């Protein structure tokens, strides 16, 4: 049974449909990457999975259970973590408080999970008493991912985790994503840095105009000359 299976998803904001039949399927322990041009519906698809957008057609299934149009707070309880692209931290809270908020629904698990998140992101342990808003972009991204990991999710959704980061931090974040995945967390992420993202992906989904254009393993997509020409900048 796949960890997440979205079939023929249609949806959008108001009357406007942005998604016109998107299919996503990842197994547990896999990394899935959604790429595509601006306006293809990548982030919209992630929001649709996380119940932040009305899905009008199709179905989204998490571990065999339909989660179509389920409230985000309910999905967190079912083991899904979501890291928005922007405004993904509490800037005036300290790093540690940010992480604590991630496990708000399981206060008893906070100490153990803090240790685990600090293991993934050692710089955060050093800065745990600092206000998250004072950190650099890359460290903020770590705080954001750490917060989502605090509920021990089985599936982590990342919306462009490397947007606006320096190449150094970009690699760092991709390495962390790989490690988090190795620890048994399924990852589905939207990425602009398509080549690097596909390189660590088990599955890749190339979206255009709200539909799957190509769906294959990350490696196959990287080596596909058609994909390279149209979506990876040659």
């Amino acid at each position: 049974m796949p960890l997440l299976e979205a079939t023929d998803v249609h949806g959008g904001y108001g009357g406007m449909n942005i998604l016109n039949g998107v299919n996503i399927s990842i197994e547990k322990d896999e990394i899935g990457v959604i790429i595509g041009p601006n306006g293809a519906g990548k982030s919209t698809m992630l929001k649709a999975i996380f119940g932040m957008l009305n899905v009008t057609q199709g179905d989204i299934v998490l571990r065999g259970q339909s989660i179509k149009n389920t409230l985000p707070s309910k999905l967190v309880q079912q083991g899904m973590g979501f890291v928005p692209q922007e405004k993904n931290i509490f800037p005036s809270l300290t790093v540690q408080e940010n992480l604590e908020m991630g496990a708000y629904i399981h206060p008893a698990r906070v100490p153990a999970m803090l240790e685990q998140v600090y293991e993934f992101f050692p710089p955060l342990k050093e800065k745990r008493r600092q206000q998250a808003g004072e950190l650099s972009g890359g460290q903020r991204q770590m705080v954001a991912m750490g917060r989502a990991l605090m509920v021990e999710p089985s599936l982590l959704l990342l919306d462009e985790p490397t947007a606006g980061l320096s190449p150094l931090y970009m690699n760092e974040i991709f390495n962390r994503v790989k490690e988090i995945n190795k620890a048994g967390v399924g990852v589905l992420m939207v990425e602009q840095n398509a080549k690097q993202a596909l390189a660590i992906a088990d599955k890749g989904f190339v979206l255009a105009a709200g539909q799957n254009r190509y769906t294959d393993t990350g490696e196959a997509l990287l080596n596909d000359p058609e994909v390279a020409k149209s979506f990876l900048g040659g």
Partner: protein
Amino acid sequence: MNEFIFFINNVVISGAVAGSIYALGAIGITLIFSIMRFAHFAHADMMTFGAFMVFIFTAMFPGSGAALGIPTPILMLPIAMAITAVLAIGLDNAFYKPLRDKGVKPIVLVIASLGVTLMLQGIIRMFAGTSSRSLYIGERKEIYRLEVPMEGITRPIVITDPQIWLIIFAIVAVVALHFFLTRSRLGKAMRAMSDNPDLAEVSGINTRAVVMVTWVIAGALAAVAGTMLAMDVALQPQLSFFILLPIFAATIVGGVGQPYGAIAGGYLVGFVETLSVFNWSILLRPLQPMLPEALEVPRNLALVGTEYKIVVPFFILVVVLIWRPTGIFKGKVI
């Protein structure tokens, strides 16, 4: 040196009293703004309501505080705090929550709170009339005269019972609020929701509980501020309406949505108000022998007359906002 005592009585104590009342009110307004993003104009009437609750219970059991050696209104205050907190939650459920659920613009909530102001004032007048009353029923307001054992000082420092209680309550409230916001799970959730409501929601924070706690704190502190003001002066239905402006000035000066800013803003407005109506010639008069004869210290050297005290908060507001457009502590912008 008597002049110095006069300064303490008229500026230090009066400023601390006014500042404490403003701070207690401003904390509530700023917390409501930080969680629900609207200016709650009915706040001052929650203060009056709290004071009236104290009045009612004091009238029902006059003199009962004597057994504990405290003024009866102080004994009744916790009950009034609880009732005002319930009123605050009730007002939210009846008037503000339905609007929020519809996703209206903040200005609609502000207008709604103006309506609630008029309604609360009307209800209070309906039951209590318009006359001025004392919260001390069959009791005497203690006035302490503290002699200062220093040469040349004959005047005592004068402080009344309610003023001491007010300052104690303000300190306790500020310390308790600090620990609540920085140590407790719910307090941290409150700061998180104030920072980023959407992320709070997707983190699984119970935002409804946070909203409720906000009203409980705001209501309870409003009851304290209203009661203390009524004990210090007298209880009138329109009492809090006069301090609504300084409280809002304090909130904005401190940085909207910043609890510590509200405290700083409250005391700033309180002290500047008392400093600006203080007659400085009293402090300068002892220096008269040192001045050339042509320079005579005038009889009255206050910066503004008492009757214009109401403009002082506006003045502070303008000055601070030119210097720091978002307030002393960086306030939130909707």
